């Protein structure tokens, strides 16, 4: 167990293992995304009230779900780097921020496009929508804060603190549709009790959510690999890698 953590903190090991993971996870991700999108677009029936516009669900829900999961990854990695000064956790935190920001952006944009034909408005200052907008600003805040510092060790610390403080927003996002009167519908998929979505729509949605999780993992690892290479450029193992690759 401890040797695993020890390895996890080793840049060459992480660089190598993440390359191996990407080699099979990346093709799986692409296939799952294409199949999931095609299934949702072509092979499901329209919603009986929303018609075909509901097909945006196959992008909107996965993007929103994984943007929240990504925030956990960023905050937990931030906590680990703050407490144990683990270099790789710091890299993971910084790698998660742009991916999470992009997925939050997607959730907001697809939501707006879905809102127009369904609610009659692109945007409303609703609790769910506003708390998701705050999530986007938290992600962008972490990125901007890191760029703002000259001293990168101090920058990482500040980013980790911001990421941790921002976690108060996460339960607000989850509960916003229950706490406030909201245009946004409550969750249709429930872990306890019966889901209020037909299985013909649930299965492609599940596939899309899994595909988005896989995509997040791929993008996170790819980001980490680039940063590891950059930070370790003066070390022997990178020099060897460079000469072997030539």
């Amino acid at each position, binding site marked *: 167990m401890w040797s695993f953590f020890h390895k996890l903190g080793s840049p060459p090991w992480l660089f190598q293992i993440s390359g191996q993971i990407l080699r099979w996870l990346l093709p799986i991700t692409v296939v799952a995304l294409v199949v999931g999108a095609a299934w949702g677009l072509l092979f499901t029936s329209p919603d009986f009230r929303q018609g*075909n*516009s509901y097909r945006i669900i196959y992008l909107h829900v996965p993007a929103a779900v994984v943007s929240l999961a990504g925030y956990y990854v960023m905050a937990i990695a931030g906590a680990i780097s703050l407490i144990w000064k683990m270099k790789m956790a710091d890299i993971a935190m910084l790698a998660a921020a742009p991916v999470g920001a992009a997925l939050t952006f*997607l959730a907001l944009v697809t939501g707006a496009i*879905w809102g127009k034909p369904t609610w009659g408005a692109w945007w409303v200052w609703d609790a769910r929508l506003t708390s998701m907008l705050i999530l986007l600003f938290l992600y962008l805040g972490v990125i901007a804060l890191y760029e703002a510092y000259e001293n990168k060790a101090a920058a990482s610390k500040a980013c980790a603190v911001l990421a941790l403080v921002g976690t108060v927003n996460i339960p607000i996002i989850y509960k916003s549709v229950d706490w406030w009167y909201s245009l946004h519908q409550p969750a249709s998929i429930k872990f306890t009790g019966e889901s209020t979505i037909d299985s013909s729509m649930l299965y492609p949605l599940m596939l899309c959510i899994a595909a988005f999780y896989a995509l997040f993992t*791929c993008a996170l690892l790819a980001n980490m690999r680039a940063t590891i290479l*950059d930070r370790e450029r003066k070390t022997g193992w990178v020099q060897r890698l460079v*000469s072997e690759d030539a």
Partner: protein
Amino acid sequence: MYFDSVSSLIAMDGHGAFVWSAYGISAVVLIALLVAPMRRRRRLMAELKGEARRAAANSANSLEAEVS
């Protein structure tokens, strides 16, 4: 398949513009998420290779200078 023709697939009963723009924007963002870090790594690798080549050339030059 639910749609019986390509034109009905594109139109989506009047929701086509919304659905297709959502899928288009998502495709662009998701592809960029995967391609950008890989391009960054490749560019970095090329840069490091260039540095290594220059360093090797420099040390070869200084070696020649010492010999002559």
